């Protein structure tokens, strides 16, 4: 599949579900309006009721939010090949949630003259909704298709770039553990919020969301940076899942230095993606490993001993270029 076709596929997969959710909202109401009472009850609105125009407007509004979310994320990550699938997963799950909410509300009011509204339908309970959302998210993840191809780097590190002295037959692996206290504090914050939501105003979707964010933050609070002959990766040690990664064939040059906190928003810790740069931030300052990639995107990783890491990356890049040169002869 060409990159253009892939981009189109990802755009369609991301943007069609919110449109469908909006269409379901309008379609359901248009088809069944004659069988609905004057108001929708049990919606939490003023007097615990809401006009049907308000219900439909709410569904369309959330669909537009999902659409903007998907389009914005797609644009922001257009140069980040490894972070694409989450976009589809999120808009699919979000759209099913929006459409599902609207459908259950209409079905609970069918042929009803007035309040009270019928009790919650069985398929709106947590044991059904959460697995369904998970399955839908996986389907969206799969539908996004393979990651976009990134071109191989055509140039290598400059002559002044740091390098490591490696013997001809020598192989090297650089690894370092990083720990982000601030990310752990965020994880605790979300965990407390989840506990609070569960105890005070129980809403399983809010609790599930808080728990999800807490788990993600906790997972990102501790990571291991690994550089071998193939790639640079930030790995979650327990899950053995790459949080951030780049193949060395896509890297032009590595440098190291002191991290400039002004390059990122103050609250950004753990994995981050912006249109210009991606990476992993564990600390407010300190050493940072910078990688320039073939599409102009930069990877930043705050890690102690970044100078050695950068030197190893450049040495591996030199080796790759030398091998490629040998192959061309």
């Amino acid at each position: 599949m060409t990159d253009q076709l892939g981009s189109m596929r990802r755009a369609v997969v991301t943007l069609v579900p919110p449109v469908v959710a909006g269409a379901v909202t309008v379609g359901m109401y248009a088809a069944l309006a004659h069988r609905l009472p004057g108001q929708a009850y049990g919606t939490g609105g003023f007097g615990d009721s809401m006009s049907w125009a308000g219900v439909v407007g709410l569904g369309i509004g959330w669909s537009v939010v999902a659409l903007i979310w998907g389009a914005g994320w797609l644009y922001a990550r257009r140069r980040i090949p490894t972070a694409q699938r989450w976009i589809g997963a999120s808009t699919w799950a979000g759209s099913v949630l929006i459409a599902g909410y609207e459908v259950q509300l209409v079905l609970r009011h069918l042929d009803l003259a007035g309040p009270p509204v019928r009790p919650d339908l069985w398929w709106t309970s947590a044991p059904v909704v959460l697995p369904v959302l998970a399955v839908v998210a996986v389907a969206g993840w799969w539908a996004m298709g393979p990651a976009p191809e990134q071109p191989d780097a055509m140039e290598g590190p400059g002559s002044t770039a740091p390098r490591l002295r490696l013997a001809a037959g020598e192989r090297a692996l650089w690894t370092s553990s990083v720990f982000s206290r601030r990310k752990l504090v965020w994880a605790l914050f979300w965990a407390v919020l989840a506990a609070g939501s569960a105890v005070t105003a129980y809403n399983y979707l809010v609790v599930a969301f808080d728990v999800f964010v807490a788990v993600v933050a906790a997972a990102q609070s501790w990571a291991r940076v690994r550089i071998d002959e193939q790639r640079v990766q930030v790995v979650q040690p327990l899950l053995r899942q790459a949080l951030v990664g780049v193949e060395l064939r896509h890297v032009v040059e590595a440098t190291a230095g002191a991290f400039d906190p002004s390059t990122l928003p103050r609250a950004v810790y753990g994995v981050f993606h912006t249109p210009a740069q991606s990476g992993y931030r564990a600390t407010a300052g300190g050493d940072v490993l910078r990688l320039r990639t073939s599409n102009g995107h930069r990877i930043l990783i705050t890690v102690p001993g970044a100078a050695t890491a950068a030197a190893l990356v450049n040495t591996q890049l030199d080796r790759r270029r030398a091998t490629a040169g040998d192959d061309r002869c």
Partner: protein
Amino acid sequence: MLIRIDATSPVPLGDQVAASVRRAIAEGQVAAGEKLPPAREVAESLGINLHTVLRGYQRLRDEGLVDLRRGRGAVLTDAATRGQAAVSERVAELVALARSMGLGEQDVLGLVSAAFQPGQ
């Protein structure tokens, strides 16, 4: 921590892995309580056998630098100070040198004992 191995070196690969860890401790790159990278990860990244890496880790355990526990991986012990790692590294070099010169364990132990005698 930089782990380097050279397949063309006469030093066994496991010992090279152990030497890399010792060097990292001696240079202060890693501290007591830190976990070493999983042996499987090191083996895959360097293209060597898992048991070779485990042999290196076991050597570090025998030296008291590493605590190996099932499910916890390899963790640097409190004894893994810069000084001890530096001495262990020199000992490893001494043994390699002695082997290359045809000296046995007792010969080296004798030399070390003699070196510890007062007045030496």
